């Protein structure tokens, strides 16, 4: 019976309870510990918000994605140009495979078509070519179309069975196309010299 009474009357002190907690909150905000904790939390929230925004900006930066694509294209282009100028008659198949792997499109087709004749030629000449990329730059990049233009300064050393190794420097212009297997050369040629052109 007593239980019932208290249970029924339990609703009555509700008002005083709310009053009490409101007073406690007021008392709580006056508490220096709470004020300091609140200030720190607000500062931390501000820093977190700022940091989060910076990070969001950093990850959703189109220019950065473009820059990465540019560097990927350049790295692939330089490697492909180097592969295309490296050939050892003692491991002809491996070298020509790497030529084919570095290329796509028309250039790739030309290499596949001319492979046998070229292999014969090199086997006969017994030459070893090594290439060193001196410098390279991307001249144009169309990220959407997946096309890029590169220019590469190359030093090629050709060693024949007789005589001194011949060193020549090449100015190469290449076109790259993006494929499922990364950037590949679709065209490669020497930069034309004004005098020879006409």
């Amino acid at each position: 019976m007593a239980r019932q009474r208290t249970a029924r009357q339990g609703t009555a002190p509700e008002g005083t309870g709310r009053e009490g907690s409101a007073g406690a909150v007021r008392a709580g905000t006056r508490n220096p510990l709470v004020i300091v904790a609140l200030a720190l939390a607000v500062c931390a929230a501000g820093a977190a918000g700022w940091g989060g925004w910076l990070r969001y900006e950093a990850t959703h930066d189109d220019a950065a994605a473009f820059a990465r694509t540019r560097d990927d294209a350049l790295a692939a282009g330089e490697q492909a140009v180097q592969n295309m100028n490296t050939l050892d008659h003692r491991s002809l198949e491996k070298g020509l495979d790497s030529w084919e792997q570095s290329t796509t499109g028309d250039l790739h087709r030309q290499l596949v078509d001319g492979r046998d004749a070229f292999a014969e030629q090199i086997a006969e000449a017994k030459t070893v070519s090594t290439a060193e990329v001196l410098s390279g730059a991307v001249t144009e990049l169309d990220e959407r179309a997946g096309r890029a233009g590169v220019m590469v300064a190359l030093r090629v050393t050709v060693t024949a069975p007789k005589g001194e190794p011949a060193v020549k420097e090449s100015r190469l212009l290449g076109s790259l196309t993006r494929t499922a297997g990364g950037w590949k050369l679709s065209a490669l040629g020497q930069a034309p010299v004004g005098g020879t052109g006409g």
Partner: protein
Amino acid sequence: MSTTRHLVNRRRRLATAPPRTPGAEPDQASEQATATATATDTDADAGPQAAQDTASDLDADTDATAGSDTAPDAPGNAPRGKASRLRVGLPAVLCALTVLLGAFAVWAFASAGDLRDEPARQNTALTDIGRTSEVKGRISEAVGAVFSYDYASPARSDRAASTYLTGRAVQQHKDMLADVREQAPRQKLVLTTTVTESGVEFLDGDRARLLIFADQSNTRTGKDEETTYAAAMFAVDAVRRGDTWLIATIDTFTR
């Protein structure tokens, strides 16, 4: 609300303080007294039993929430107990929040910094289209002017050198053109350099590196006129001074 608090406290008392069990009966009575007392909103009117009850209530509360800063002389009741919990709870929650948010902030700043320092991002060649074409145009012009020489007006070459060159490039240029300068008057040399292709390898603010392919035509206008062409390739480091780009070093890839 306050009723359940009383019940909880009572159970706690019963569990933790066995010697007090005989006082359980008056306790219950006092509970009713408090309930009625608070209902009429006159705490002071509650009997001595009720006073004892609320006092022990407070004891139990302060025991349960160790480190509570509730003043011992405060007239304790259930809402007060809640308040004291709130006082401890709020700073604790805020501290936890501060630590979590602070940790997130540190991580976010660090990772944003890492992303920003990425080498690809530092290099704004092609990503900054305006600057890229500006430096390309300006350096192509500079290379053309600096590596051209007309025996008839050697002063123009000097002027170009002082306009477009800075730092180490000044001496490099002097050495490169030494032969031309020497032979020019005798052979009536006209050297013309045209940049055919240029690409920006690297661009970061006021510094840039460009790869240049250029054609050089060398014309001897002496007895038998003769023009030879040469293909040149080199890289230049450029620096921006004011609103113009200057050549700072010339790298001809010599071994």
